[in-house]
C-alpha cells in the first residue's frame, strides 16, 4: 500500500472538511451540521449511500467466489474490509442524525448482514495467515465458499426487503418489482467502482475489473432507461456520472492512466450519491443546485472517517494482505491473474460435494431456527432468512474448531 498517498488523501479530506465547516459558518448552515434539521435530508442521503457501500464489497467478493472468478486474495480482502468500514460510517450517521433519518430500516437485518460479513472477513484472514497453524488455515479455507453460498441470498433478501419497505413507506413512486433489482444491481456496480479506487491505492491495476465495470455500466444504463420508461422519473445527472462517464474507459489513454481511471471511478461513486439524493429528496441534482457548506462538511466527514477506518485497519492487518501471493505494481493484459493456479473441476454427484457436506447440518439448523422465529414473531418477511443465515454461518464457522479439537483428541488418544 502506498502510505504516503493515503496520508496525503486523508490530510486533503481533513482540510476540505475544515474548509467546508468554515464555509458553513459563512452561509449560516452550521446549526444544520450540529443539530440537523427536519428540512435537511442530506444526512439521510449519506446514510443510504454508506449503507449501499456497506453491502457492495462483500456482495462483489461473495459473487466472484461463487462464480469461480479468480481474483487475488488481497483484492477480496480489500472489498470485504471496505464493506465493514462502510457499515461503520453509515452507523455513525444513523447515531448522530437519528432524528433526521426517517428511512424505515430493518436494523436487525442489516446488523446480521454486518455480522456475517465480519465472520466472512475473519475466516478469510485466518485462512490467509500461513504463519499460524497450517491445519487451521486449511480448515478455514474449506468453509469460505459455503459461507459465500449462505451470505449471497441473505444480502439479496435483506436488500430487497429494505427497498420494498422503503418504497411502500417513503415514496410510492418506487413501489414495484423493479426498484429492488435496480438497487441490487446498483450496489454491485458500486462495488466494482470502489474496487478500482481501492486498488489504485495499492499501486495495482487489474484490467479484468475495469472491463467488468464497463460491461456493467451498459446494463445499468439499460436498467436506468427502463426505470425512466416505467416510472417516468429518473435522475439524469446520476445517469451522466454513473453510466456515461465510464464509457471514457474505451479510450486507451484514459484506461491506462491512473488518475483518469481514478476520476472515472470517483464519478461513478458521485453518480451513486446523486441517485441516493434523488431517491430520498425527489429533486434532480439537488446536491449541486442547492449547495450548502453543511452538506459538503457531512460528505467530507463521512469520506474522512471511511479513509481513516479503512486504511487504519489495512495498515494494522498488512501482514495478512501482503502475503506470499502478492503482486505489486502495474500488470499488463497478458499477466492478468496469471499467478493464480487453475484448479481443475472434478465432477461430484448430487449432494456429495465437499461444500454441501459442510453446509448441510448448519443450514438445516438455521432453517429450523428461522422458521421457529417466524412462527413465534409472525414476521415471515423481515427476519426469517437473516436469522437462518446467522445461525448457519455461526455453525459453519464453528466446524473447523470442532474438527481440529476432535483430531487433536484422536491423536492424543493414539499416543497414549
Amino acid at each position, binding site marked *: 500500500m502506498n502510505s504516503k498517498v493515503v496520508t496525503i488523501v486523508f490530510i486533503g479530506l481533513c482540510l476540505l472538511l475544515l474548509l467546508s465547516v468554515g464555509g458553513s459558518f459563512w452561509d449560516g448552515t452550521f446549526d444544520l451540521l450540529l443539530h440537523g434539521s427536519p428540512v435537511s435530508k442530506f444526512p439521510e442521503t449519506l446514510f443510504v449511500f454508506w449503507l449501499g457501500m456497506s453491502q457492495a464489497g462483500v456482495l462483489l467478493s461473495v459473487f466472484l467466489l461463487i462464480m*469461480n472468478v479468480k481474483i487475488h486474495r488481497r483484492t477480496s480482502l480489500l472489498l470485504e474490509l471496505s464493506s465493514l468500514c462502510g457499515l461503520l460510517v453509515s452507523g455513525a450517521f444513523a447515531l448522530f442524525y437519528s432524528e433526521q433519518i426517517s428511512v424505515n430500516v430493518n436494523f436487525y437485518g442489516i446488523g446480521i448482514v454486518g455480522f456475517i460479513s465480519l465472520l466472512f472477513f475473519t475466516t478469510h484472514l485466518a485462512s490467509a495467515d500461513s504463519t499460524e497453524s497450517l491445519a487451521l488455515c486449511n480448515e478455514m479455507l474449506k468453509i469460505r465458499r459455503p459461507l459465500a453460498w449462505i451470505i449471497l441470498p441473505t444480502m439479496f433478501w435483506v436488500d*430487497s*426487503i429494505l427497498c*420494498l419497505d422503503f418504497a411502500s413507506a417513503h415514496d410510492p413512486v418506487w413501489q414495484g*418489482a423493479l426498484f429492488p*433489482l435496480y438497487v441490487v444491481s446498483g450496489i454491485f456496480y458500486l462495488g466494482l467502482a470502489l474496487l478500482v479506487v481501492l486498488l489504485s491505492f495499492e499501486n495495482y491495476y487489474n484490467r479484468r475489473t475495469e472491463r467488468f465495470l464497463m460491461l456493467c455500466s451498459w446494463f445499468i444504463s*439499460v436498467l436506468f432507461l427502463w426505470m425512466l420508461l416505467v416510472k417516468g422519473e429518473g435522475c439524469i445527472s446520476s445517469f451522466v456520472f454513473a453510466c456515461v462517464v465510464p464509457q471514457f474507459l474505451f479510450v486507451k489513454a484514459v484506461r491506462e492512466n491512473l488518475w483518469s481511471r481514478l476520476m472515472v471511478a470517483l464519478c461513478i461513486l458521485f453518480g451513486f450519491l446523486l441517485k441516493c439524493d434523488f431517491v430520498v429528496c425527489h429533486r434532480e441534482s439537488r446536491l449541486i443546485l442547492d449547495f450548502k457548506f453543511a452538506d459538503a462538511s457531512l460528505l467530507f466527514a463521512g469520506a474522512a472517517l471511511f479513509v481513516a477506518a479503512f486504511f487504519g485497519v489495512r495498515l494494522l492487518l498488512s501482514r495478512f494482505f501482503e502475503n506470499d501471493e502478492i503482486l505489486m505494481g502495474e500488470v499488463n493484459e497478458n499477466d492478468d491473474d496469471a499467478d493464480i493456479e487453475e484448479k481443475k473441476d472434478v465432477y461430484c454427484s448430487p449432494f456429495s460435494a465437499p461444500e454441501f457436506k459442510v453446509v448441510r447440518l448448519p443450514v438445516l439448523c438455521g432453517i429450523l431456527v428461522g422458521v421457529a422465529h417466524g412462527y413465534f414473531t409472525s414476521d415471515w418477511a423481515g427476519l426469517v432468512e437473516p436469522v437462518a443465515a446467522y445461525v448457519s454461518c455461526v455453525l459453519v464457522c464453528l466446524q473447523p474448531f470442532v474438527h481440529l479439537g476432535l483430531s487433536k483428541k484422536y491423536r492424543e488418544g493414539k499416543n497414549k
Partner: protein
Amino acid sequence: MSMFANAVACLLCLIFAFVLCLQKGMLRITLLMLIAVMTSCLYTSFAGNLAIPALESYPFRMVALTFCVYTTRLRENRRRYMVLAQTFWLWVELVGCVSLLQVGEEAPWIRLAAIAEIALGCCFMAKISREIEFGLIVLWMAVWMFF
C-alpha cells in the same frame, strides 16, 4: 399479457439462449446479453401496458428464462449454474410477488412454487442427459406459459 404475447416472449427467450450458446468470449457474450435485455424491454413496452405493475419486471423474467435455457448448453459446472439461473428467476419472481402484494394485487404464488420445485429438483440430478435437458426446457416453458 395475452397468451399469444407470452408465447412470443418465450420464443424470444429461446432464440436469445440459442444465439448465446453460439458465442465465445466474455465481450461477445456480454454484448449479446445486453441486446437480449434491450430487446426484452422493447418487446414488453410494445406488447404490454406498462401501467400494469406485474409488467415492471417482465423483461428481467425473460432474461432469467434465457439464462436458464442457456445453462443447459454449458459444458462445465452445469448443475451449479442451472441452479443459480433458476435462483435468479426465483428472486425476480419473489420480489415481483411481494411488490404486487404491497399494491393489493394477486401474486402468482404457484409460479413461484413451481420454479422453486424445479430448482430443487435440479440439485438432485446426477447426470443431465439430452432428454432431461429437453424436459427441463419444456417444464420452464410450461411454467412461463401456464402459471
